[in-house]
């Protein structure tokens, strides 16, 4: 993005007359607005897709009333949520109750700044991009814990506590799986990592050092699925036991912001997975549409495919018990991810 701004400043157009700082800030804000719009659209489409996917998997029709084949259903739902009364329980801590949805959305939203959308196109080209994303997404733990605590509701508190324990536990295997990739590439910059996998599907890191990277990918996939609180790991909002978990006392648009954040986080982990293991913006076929803006298409497609697998899993697997959840994280995924690091390290030395 920096190059684009520099080019505009030195051009003959109207932009060259603006002060560089102002122009830079305007472009950053436009980029951020674009991402926010994409996230909102993502939630609109993904909610519809999820309802349709679940319906087809269960031989139902799903939403059919609003618009052709129910395609406007989520839009209508959004309008409904916008005009619903916002109820804050009298016993709740009002300030924290308000703060939680902000934190929940901001964490994934800010992480999108560091993702590689196409060859050499990143909003914030951090040298520590991978580290930045893992760090800022951890903020969402605080949001869920805050929502659970501030509601002063027993279901919400239990849901918030579960969310904290779960996200915190699964951050370890996810971080270790990311480490195996960082070891091989020798960089924390997302663009470098994508560049290392350029040139077709056989260059993707998921196939390298077989089977260690494949295992690392599976560990990363499961751990991030759990960090998004998606079924089979949706214990923080297990509706059959905790009513709605941490957002029991949220209504109207504040509730929908939690949904928006959940889908934003799904998109985020899918894209991070694509960038680390599945070649990022590079085309799966060597030399086929592998230039410039086509990267956005490939990157987005990989993300969408991963999200569809999230949905597929959700409607296939039953929810885990809490003890199974902890067992999977600490006794299965963590040892496996350590084994991957050691295995890849030895292979690289050999």
């Amino acid at each position: 993005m920096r190059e684009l701004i520099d080019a505009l400043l030195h051009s003959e157009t109207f932009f060259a007359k603006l002060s560089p700082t102002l122009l830079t800030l305007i472009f950053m804000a436009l980029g951020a607005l674009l991402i926010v719009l994409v996230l909102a659209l993502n939630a609109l489409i993904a909610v519809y897709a999820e309802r349709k996917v679940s319906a087809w998997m269960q031989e139902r029709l799903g939403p059919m009333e609003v618009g052709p084949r129910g395609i406007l259903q989520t839009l209508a739902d959004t309008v409904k949520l916008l005009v619903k009364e916002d109820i804050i329980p009298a016993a709740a801590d009002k300030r924290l109750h308000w703060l939680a949805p902000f934190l929940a959305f901001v964490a994934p939203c800010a992480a999108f700044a560091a993702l590689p959308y196409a060859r050499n196109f990143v909003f914030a080209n951090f040298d520590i991009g991978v580290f930045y994303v893992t760090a800022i997404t951890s903020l969402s733990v605080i949001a869920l814990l805050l929502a659970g605590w501030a509601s002063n509701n027993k279901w919400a508190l239990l849901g918030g506590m579960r969310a904290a324990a779960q996200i915190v536990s699964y951050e370890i295997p996810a971080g270790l799986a990311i480490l195996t990739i960082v070891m091989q590439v020798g960089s924390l910059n997302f663009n470098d990592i994508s560049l290392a996998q350029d040139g077709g599907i056989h260059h993707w890191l998921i196939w390298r050092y077989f089977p260690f990277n494949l295992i690392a990918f599976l560990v990363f996939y499961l751990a991030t699925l759990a960090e998004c609180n998606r079924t089979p790991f949706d214990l923080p909002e297990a509706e059959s036991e905790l009513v709605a978990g941490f957002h029991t006392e949220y209504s109207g648009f504040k509730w929908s912001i939690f949904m928006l954040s959940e889908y934003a986080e799904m998109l985020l982990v899918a894209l991070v997975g694509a960038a680390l293991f599945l070649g990022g913006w590079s085309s799966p076929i060597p030399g086929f549409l592998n230039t410039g803006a086509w990267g956005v298409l490939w990157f987005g497609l990989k993300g969408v495919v991963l999200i569809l697998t999230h949905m597929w899993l959700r409607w296939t697997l039953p929810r885990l018990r809490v003890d199974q959840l902890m067992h999977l994280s600490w006794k299965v995924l963590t040892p496996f991810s350590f084994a991957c690091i050691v295995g890849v390290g030895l292979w690289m030395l050999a």
Partner: protein
Amino acid sequence: MYFDFTTAFVFLVVGVGFIAIALVISRLLQPRHPTAVKLSTYECGEQPVGQSWIQFNNRFYVIALVFLIFDVEIAFLFPWAVVFKNLGLFAFVEALIFIGILLVGLAYVWRKGDLEWDKPQTGKYAREAAPELYREVPAPAVSEAREKAMVGEMA
């Protein structure tokens, strides 16, 4: 570098702004008719019993400590992983020792049963929750009028 961090900060600000505008619009459009019953805490239609800001055994204390240690470890390993290619065998052995010490810790916690949700109740590693973790919550005073109303509803 400042450019990148400013970009990230602008993303934060725009994210907050988006939520704020959405909530303000929602506030302007929504009806507001609060009543005492509507604002009461949801407990599946029952009268709420006590507060939720109580002490309870959330069973994750040790897991939280283990997480803290492992998370710091990962933070330390990131710089190592970046330069691992150039450092070779010596750095690998050092990292192995570092990871090894932590794995011994994990094995210890595992063996002691602190990773279990259901703590062993008997034997060498028996762990029972301290009784003071379950404080009794005093039952709420139900007014006579309310009690009569409840009886009336049932009849």
